[in-house]
């Protein structure tokens, strides 16, 4: 009985969560004029026309934007998982001069709104001749610039019993060995979480990609999506929703696959 109730509650919640997605799919199947009528979930004259229109609307196939986003997001995932875990390990487990100061400095980097550092960063990337390439999106992730993930991993590492490190040290492991054999395996849930967020946030993050990318064939999904709307003219709402639905597919897939990994992560204490 309790179980039934729990399921009922969860399902009701899920419907509230799901409504927007259903609405978006429904809007993507309507002709432009119908989207702004009374909201309902069933399109009167369903059509797949928006998908065809959106896919090739800009004269460049939408597949190219998907590819570009995929390349950037994959690279960012790898960069963040690698370098943020290195950084977090040092902050969480190692002793060094200036630890507290540097930790505070690291946190300070996410306290300043990005809009005011954008111009100077743009100049740096221009001097490196990286404007209109993927590097400005990718390279920072390989330099652990996202303190969110570093701090996340610090918290997870600090909740791992330090006795495990000591045991490994007795077995003759150095800092690197402990990181590789003890910390990384036990950190799986945090690493997977980092991977999920890195992917999804980069996938949706339009501002940097708008500023750095110019050539049509190098544009990414969020930039292309915004192209369907323009305050000065007519907007392609139907195409926008159709392509929004299409761009949701990869993130949903990524989420579902990686979620499994979190669960497989550790249901045991990890003591060998």
């Amino acid at each position, binding site marked *: 009985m309790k179980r039934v109730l729990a399921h009922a509650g969860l399902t009701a919640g899920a419907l509230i969560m799901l409504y927007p997605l259903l609405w978006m799919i429904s809007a993507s199947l309507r002709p432009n004029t119908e989207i702004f009528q009374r909201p309902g979930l069933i399109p009167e004259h369903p059509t797949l026309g928006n998908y065809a229109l959106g896919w090739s609307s800009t004269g460049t196939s939408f597949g190219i934007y998907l590819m570009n986003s995929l390349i950037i997001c994959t690279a960012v995932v790898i960069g963040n998982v690698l370098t943020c875990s290195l950084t977090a390990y040092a902050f969480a487990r190692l002793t060094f001069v200036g630890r507290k100061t540097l930790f505070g400095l690291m946190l300070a980097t996410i306290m300043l709104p990005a809009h005011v550092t954008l*111009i100077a960063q743009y100049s740096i990337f221009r001097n490196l001749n990286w404007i209109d390439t993927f590097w400005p999106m990718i390279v920072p992730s390989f330099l652990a610039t996202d303190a969110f993930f570093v701090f996340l991993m610090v918290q997870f590492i600090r909740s791992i019993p330090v006795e495990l490190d000591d045991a490994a040290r007795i077995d003759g492991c150095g800092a690197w060995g402990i990181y590789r054999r003890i910390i990384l395996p036990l950190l799986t849930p945090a690493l997977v979480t980092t991977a999920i967020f890195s992917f999804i946030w980069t996938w949706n993050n339009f501002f940097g990609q708008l500023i750095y990318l110019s050539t049509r064939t190098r544009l990414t999904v969020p930039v292309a999506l915004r192209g369907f709307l323009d305050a000065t003219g007519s907007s392609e709402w139907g195409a926008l929703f159709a392509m929004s639905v299409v761009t949701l597919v990869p993130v949903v897939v990524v989420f579902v696959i990686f979620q499994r990994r979190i669960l497989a992560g550790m249901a045991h204490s990890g003591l060998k």
Partner: protein
Amino acid sequence: MNTFSRRTLLGLGAATAAAITLPGCSAKSGPMRVAWYGPDPVTKAINKALDAWKAGGGAEYAGESAPFDDYWDKLATQTSGNNAPDVLRMSMSYFSDYAGRNALKDLGSAGIDTSALDKDVADSGLSDGKNFGIGQSSISYAMYVDEAAVKQAGGTVPEQGWTWDKFAEFARDYAGSVQGSYGSGDQAGNLQLFEVFARQHGTELFSDDGGKLATSKETVQEWFQYWADLRTAKAAPPQNVSAETTGIEKSLIAKGKAPLQFGWVQQVTFYQPLVKNPLAVLPVPQGTAGDLKGQFVKGLDLWCVSAASKHPEDAAKLIGFLLNDEQAIKAIGILLGVPPSQKARDLVAADAGSAGARAIKYVEDIAGQVGPSPKPWPKGYGELLTGFGRIAENIGFGKTTPAAGATEFVELAGKTLGQ
């Protein structure tokens, strides 16, 4: 940093700035870059024109485009990062911000052929005796009216145009006779329409040097009061309804809740597909019936060349091409607005009876009757544009009065202009 002094900080800033703009690391100069804003149809059309440029032996180029709002964020970053595109589409709203800060090249001696252009458009980019941009289109403010809906409600559209008083009367009658509809959308926050209103009161909106407001506080107050009265009479919608009519698709006329809409003339082509009946393009209301001196024709968007361009000759040639070449004219059509020359208007030949054709005809009809073009909008115009809208909104929500709102706008203009 306990001895925090100006010098330390200046030193810090300078050192950092030096680190960031390392000498000898200048970006490599690739092909000429062309940037514009606009929805996808505009992008397609300009690409087509650029293809014709290349086929005709024009220089190598790379195109980049963005929607209007995003475009300005990007252009500001590129320009301050010393990486502005060579040829760029420039809106009159931001023109002085860029021209006044030396970001644009003087095209006075660039040899661009503007002989075919309407005079007011050719002169749109004149600022301090220099020519910083060439108009792309001839536009004027207009009112699009669903005449069939007006007739159905038992009203008439006067032959020689409405006075503001008659217009208010019409709006009240219409709202009274058609259930659930308003006589007009609320234009209180529309600075561009207010500019016409101000000129009808005998002054420009801004002083010639762009340093201050030329219109009076009383005129601003009269304007805010006019729309407040219409809202009170339910001839114009309450503020929360107006707040939900952002964008063309959600406008009252598209939802069948008003018989008319104000806007720049070429925008009628965006509204027409959303309205069953043909929209007539008419002058906006006047102080004296039939006197169109408050209105003007000018270029709202310009082609400019950035001051730092490494391809100034090619950039100038390309602008000349976009304005004068037959293939380019045909490719662009009326997507950027009503074409700026008689030759182009004849070439484009919008389908008779289409909204585009009505827009072209409107510009040609009123060209002889409008007043002289105002100077380019001054530095800080963008801020005043949004500020005017915000103040009107505050009045609409009852947070302030037309009198106080007018004072606030005059103060805002004092703070913003002449900086």
